[in-house]
């Protein structure tokens, strides 16, 4: 019984590790500037996790194997209530490793979250709703037209409440897909019309909630051109699973050409680009 249990625990351990090592079910290839740092921290952590996991399961199996009661009369366990020295030793080692990992990880967090977008960033206003994404572009004048919730009219396709009276909104465009330049810092100003949503492109390696009543800013930089799927990652209602869109990372000239287009032309051009670019293979 003991030996069987030990073997089963070890087999489970081996199979689990094998599943992780199989790169088929791993992150999609990252395209953001912070991806290498993220992936490195993840790898280090998962290594610590993996080693601890294997060590503990092997030790458990070994103890189960070795110390099973063989039924010999008079054969008793070792009488020990513990060892203070060992307690201190393993507490300190564990604390150092765990807290060390935590502190290491903060630099990745800080690089993404504690810095404002640098001047010259490409800014897009993102307005999420049940169940679609709305991306508001400032147009050639680089000024966002005034928006107001009282002006929102989904039926009239004014999803973000753009004020037609404001001169700055004449060159603005609003589409369902996100188009950003490659190799340039991007700032997203995230808002929501109704409930909490979450902006997520797997290749960017970050998620961010969009909270109604708040404007939350994130900034990042994508360094590979292409088309990427965009999903909502916070339960927002029954069609949460279908709240899908795309992020287009475009060469600078392509994006500049896009910026000067009017609303209809903008949407048409984005549709063309969505057909033109393919999703990544991995």
């Amino acid at each position, binding site marked *: 019984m003991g030996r069987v249990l030990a073997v089963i625990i070890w087999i489970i351990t081996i199979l*689990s590790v094998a599943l992780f090592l199989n790169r088929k079910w791993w992150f999609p290839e990252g395209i953001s500037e912070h991806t290498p740092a993220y992936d490195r921290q993840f790898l280090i952590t998962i290594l610590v*996790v993996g080693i601890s996991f294997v060590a503990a399961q092997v030790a458990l199996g070994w103890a189960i194997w070795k110390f*099973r009661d063989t039924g010999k009369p008079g054969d008793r366990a070792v009488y020990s209530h513990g*060892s203070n020295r060992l307690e201190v030793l393993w507490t300190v080692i564990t604390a150092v490793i765990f807290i060390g990992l935590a502190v290491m990880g903060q630099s990745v967090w800080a690089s993404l979250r504690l810095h404002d977008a640098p001047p010259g960033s490409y800014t897009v206003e993102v307005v999420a709703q049940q169940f679609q994404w709305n991306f508001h572009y400032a147009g050639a004048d680089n000024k966002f037209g005034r928006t107001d919730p009282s002006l929102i009219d989904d039926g009239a396709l004014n999803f973000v409440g753009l004020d037609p009276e404001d001169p700055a909104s004449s060159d603005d465009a609003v589409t369902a897909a996100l188009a950003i330049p490659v190799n340039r810092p991007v700032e997203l100003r995230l808002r929501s019309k109704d409930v909490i949503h*979450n902006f997520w492109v797997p290749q960017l390696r970050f998620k961010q909630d969009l909270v*109604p009543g708040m404007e939350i800013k994130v900034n990042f930089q994508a360094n590979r051109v292409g088309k990427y799927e965009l999903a909502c990652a916070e*339960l927002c209602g*029954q069609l949460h699973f279908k709240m899908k869109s795309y992020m287009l990372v475009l060469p600078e000239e392509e994006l500049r050409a896009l910026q000067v287009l009017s609303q209809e032309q903008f949407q048409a051009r984005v549709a063309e680009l969505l057909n033109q670019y393919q999703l990544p293979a991995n």
Partner: protein
Amino acid sequence: MSESHEGVHRHPAPTSFIRKYIFSVDHKVIGIQYIMLALAAVVVGMVMSLLMRLNLSWPGTSWPILETLFPTGAPGGIMTPEFYLSLVTMHGTIMVFFVLTTAPQGGFGNYFLPIQIGAEDMAFPVLNMLSFWVTLVGFIVILLAIVVEGNQSIGAWFAGLGPSFAGGSGTVGPIGGWTGYAPLSALGKIAGPGQGAGMNLWVISIAIFCVGSLLGALNFITTLLNMRTKGMSLMRMPLTCWAWFTTAVLALLSFPVLLGGGILLLLDRTAGTSFFIPGGLYVSGLLSGSHPNFPLHTGGSPILWQHLFWFFGHPEVYIAILPGMGATSHILSTFARKPVFGYRAMVFAIFAIGLLGFFVWGHHMFISGMSPYSSIAFSILTLSIGVPSAVKTFNWLGTLWGSRIRFTTAMLFALGFVSLFVSGGITGLVLGQSSLDLAMHDSYFVTAHFHLVMGVASIFGMFAATYFWFPKMFGRFMSERIGRIHFWLTFIGVYAIFVPFHTMGIRGMPRRFSSFAEYEFLRNVDPLVLLVSIAAIITIAAQLLFYYNVFLSMFKGEKAGDNPWEATTLEWNTSSPPPHDNFAGVLPTVYHGPYEFAVPGAPKDYVMQTDIEAEVPDGNGHNGHKH
């Protein structure tokens, strides 16, 4: 609750069926009632998870029974997205509250805490009875949510109570996840199906549950502080008692916060307040304040709900696991025939987990929009809480080292607990780092982590406790043969279900998706999804063995004596089952610590706590003496 004229707590044993088994103030009966409640609730929860797996692996399939019972939520027998999400919500709520927060504490704790400390009953027996009945009412209310949402005519009746009460969406309950984030949960019907009456009943059920839980916590703490028998010092208590005590303190301090939050949510839903609902919303084509279906709201904070919920929610998960840890320490020691390694360290670890548990709630909210600086603090605190958990694991391994293991079914499940707790807990190292959580938030990696610790390890703790204490509770053994089969199928099954969840999460599968067909990057997870579903079906089916074993053995099991496992603690001093006042009028006196196994020179390989003659080195169970 009567008092004898001699002063202490003697009331005559009840004689009528109702006073013996229904409205009983005997902590033993109440403990069994809680366990029965959990056994019923877990069936509901498992059926729901089975349906979830069926939907994910075989989407678009028509299930005839669904068409009969829920024609609107599953038209033609095919689950709608809202039906799936209602399953997710109710599965989580029922499992976390009515299974994991009842059986370990209210069930086994109620039964065995008084006995293990040498008392005749809990400090407040009537309050104890009340705590069970209040909890049961909470369960009935949440079942009502299923009916109100699932049944058109009943749902229509509820709609008469007010705008936020419209039900009958055809689903099995509200749709908000067990976490019920605002404003989705606060807006009412305009936010979609499953946001009406079912949600109101969900909040009310949880509020009622909070009250029941608080009454129980009050009893546990007072009993432990006031009613230990002669010689039962705090450091001679079994670790199960330490675990129940700390769990009760956690419950005492965290459930009121949930109650507060729940009241605010209910007011937002029914009284037009704006605690969690900000201004300027545009929902389902309506602007806030522009229509009677959507009254004016201003200024509320959705993140406030998250803070209140998770301030409760994090201690709650420790409430779910600590009793299992206590039981595991206890059972490992008993069947390893060896004292617990590092008893004192184990007590400190339980404290540390309990205390730190109050300071880490923000790790559920790293990407919520709260201050990134507080995320740093929460992240570091969260990884610190891994330290006492690791210490406990080392001590369990230390207990096994140099032992003589007897592989009873209870021991198998206790060993399984150690294995599963390591597997589940260790991924906390990933999720606790704010930087890594950036991508892992709301993915199946999170689901893997909490299912392994709560949904599996904690349940294994309960299984171990059942097989261990069944002979004491019912005077009969459970079948070891069936128990072993149950163990193997479940142990292998749960690993097969939940390990793949990790890689599915790394690949990017989000939580609470009723279908993954929309996304190209998720195409390759189908084989994993299928593997999980098959494993789930087998594992759920295997639990039938457990039910069969429990109910058959109650009546037909092999008879058990007072101390069939040759254990040391006070419950094994009395008959199986114990008499009404636990010790037949003579309270025991304690001379030793709880885990005196393999004492050198002792005639048997165990020394009971009450053994006045035995000579134990260093006397008095002052544990932690150096080697």
